[in-house]
């Protein structure tokens, strides 16, 4: 059992505090950096897509997991990011200008949505964000002159400083770099007042306000930063898809993002990562499984959505904390061995809260 003896406030400020965390993260980053050496193009491309979903998941996690604002419309920001970047690139704007410009644009749209959503709660917020998604999807589809409409839009090749990144491994490193930056930035948010204000708004708007948190502004900020990060995921996604069409960024994609962070575990960065791994690896695992299963099962239509749905139900019923919650318990088991008890993680029921004054 590891007991951390704290001698400096820095130990609480650092993102990684335990030796085990350092080792795990270092190994993971090393494995990711060397992935092109031992993975073929197909798996490398799947890994790249996984990273895209990590970024998108973190984007939605900032809004839903940290600030507690549900959004059924996040695929719209994925779409806005993908289209905005592709259009800018096709106009000859360099990648390293287009990427931040897209993040900024997506973030501003997010702030606008946040401005109108900041007074809404629960069900109304869900419907409002869904409406936003439909508006954006229609807009992309109908604005033929700029977006190519339903015929689609061809994504320009990934070009950075005159070099064409056409090989999968090159693109993979771009994905990895952006993902690490976003993860680092989000971890930074959580250790500074902005991120704590998010958590405060999520857990109790009433006492957050009494402590001087400007609820509306925090929600607008959260929508903005969440949309910007999701927009960046859209940029990366565009280079994987190579061809954009409005229906790619529909309700189903939004649901996928939402289910991803629920299965991964709401309220932690790790949850977004685990969720992305789950969503991306399930089809891969299934395609491997198909080869060994008898044809009667493996050729059934709808096997993947069914399995997807089944696993989500299992998680919602048996592990509401998601995969990251399970992971935390596993670590706790080893850290406190042999003292772990089933009841170690049973929470007391929460006391009456002052919500009636909302």
């Amino acid at each position: 059992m590891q007991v951390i003896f704290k001698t400096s406030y820095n130990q609480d400020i650092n993102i990684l505090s335990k030796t085990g965390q350092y080792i795990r993260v270092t190994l993971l980053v090393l494995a990711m950096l060397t992935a092109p050496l031992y993975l073929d193009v197909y798996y490398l491309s799947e890994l790249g897509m996984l990273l895209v979903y990590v970024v998108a998941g973190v984007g939605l996690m900032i809004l839903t997991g940290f600030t507690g604002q549900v959004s059924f419309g996040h695929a719209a920001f994925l779409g806005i990011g993908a289209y905005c970047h592709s259009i800018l690139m096709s106009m000859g704007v360099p990648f390293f200008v287009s990427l931040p410009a897209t993040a900024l644009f997506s973030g501003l749209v997010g702030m606008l949505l946040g401005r109108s959503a900041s007074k809404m709660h629960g069900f109304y917020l869900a419907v409002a964000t869904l409406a936003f998604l439909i508006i954006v999807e229609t807009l992309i589809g109908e604005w033929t002159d700029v977006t190519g409409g339903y015929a689609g839009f061809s994504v320009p090749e990934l070009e950075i400083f005159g070099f064409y990144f056409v090989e999968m491994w090159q693109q993979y490193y771009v994905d990895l770099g952006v993902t690490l930056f976003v993860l680092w930035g989000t971890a930074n948010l959580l250790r500074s007042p902005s991120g704590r204000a998010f958590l405060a708004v999520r857990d109790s708007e009433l006492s957050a306000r009494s402590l001087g948190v400007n609820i509306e502004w925090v929600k607008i900020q959260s929508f903005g930063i969440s949309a910007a990060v999701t927009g960046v995921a859209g940029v990366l996604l565009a280079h994987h898809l190579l061809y954009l069409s409005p229906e790619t960024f529909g309700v189903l994609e939004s649901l996928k993002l939402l289910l991803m962070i629920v299965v991964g575990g709401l309220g932690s960065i790790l949850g977004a990562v685990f969720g992305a791994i789950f969503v991306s690896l399930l089809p891969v695992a299934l395609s491997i499984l198909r080869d060994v299963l008898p044809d009667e099962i493996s050729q059934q239509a709808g096997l993947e959505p069914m399995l997807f749905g089944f696993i989500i139900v299992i998680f919602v019923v048996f592990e509401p904390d998601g995969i990251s919650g399970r992971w935390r318990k596993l670590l706790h088991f080893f850290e406190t061995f042999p003292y772990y008890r089933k009841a170690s993680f049973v929470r007391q029921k929460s006391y009456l809260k002052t919500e009636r004054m909302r």
Partner: protein
Amino acid sequence: MSSLVVKNLAIEFGGVKAVDDVSFEVEQGETFAIIGPNGAGKSTIFNLISRIYEPSAGSIHYGEKNLLDVAPHRVIDTGIARTFQNIDLFEQATVLQNLLVGRHRRMSQNILRDFVFFAGCRAREREHRRKVEDVIDLMEIAHYRDQLISDLPYGARKNVELARALCAEPTLLLLDEPASGLNQEETDDVSFWLNDIKHDLGVTIVMVEHDMGLVGRVADRVLAINNGKFLSLGTPEEVRNDAAVQQAYLGTAA
């Protein structure tokens, strides 16, 4: 010198006059208690002072400031911090995070700077952490520091909530039933803390409390209200012997 001046305060919810023409003044540095039977309008007065409700009549001044001109999230800038009757902490955050939110208004914020944890962010965290640690020492909650609120027992949550309000370095503290749900020993602790807060930190305290023993020990003056109306104002002894107060609590004059 009066610091908090409430004049002819009133609020109606539909036809219910929850607070009806209540006036009182709280002196700087005193401990002022508001008592009354259930539904008397005690917490409503608190919610009016912290601007959660908009009064239908009357005025509230704190120092030079007219509180009715202040936005709810700016009330804390005038130096007023509060606790809630039903403990309103950030449940899925640690004690430390809760207390740091208490310092929210005093921390410079720029979300983009925070995102890249720009130079100065670490120094800012350390500086405010030091202030938080002072409060942790005062309230003796050091052993809970890294725990989630949802793991804490009720009594500890009460202390953390008081600590969170103190982290804002208030000049006026609104305490909504600081001793409700606490046992005799914990209530004694509360009375020591309230005296410490008053004498060492020089904070003015306004509290709503049912425990007359606690009120008698810490309060300098007591305001009694019933059905939103003024009953009595004076020292704890005077109010306890007031015929109107006894009638409100016991039904007939004893």
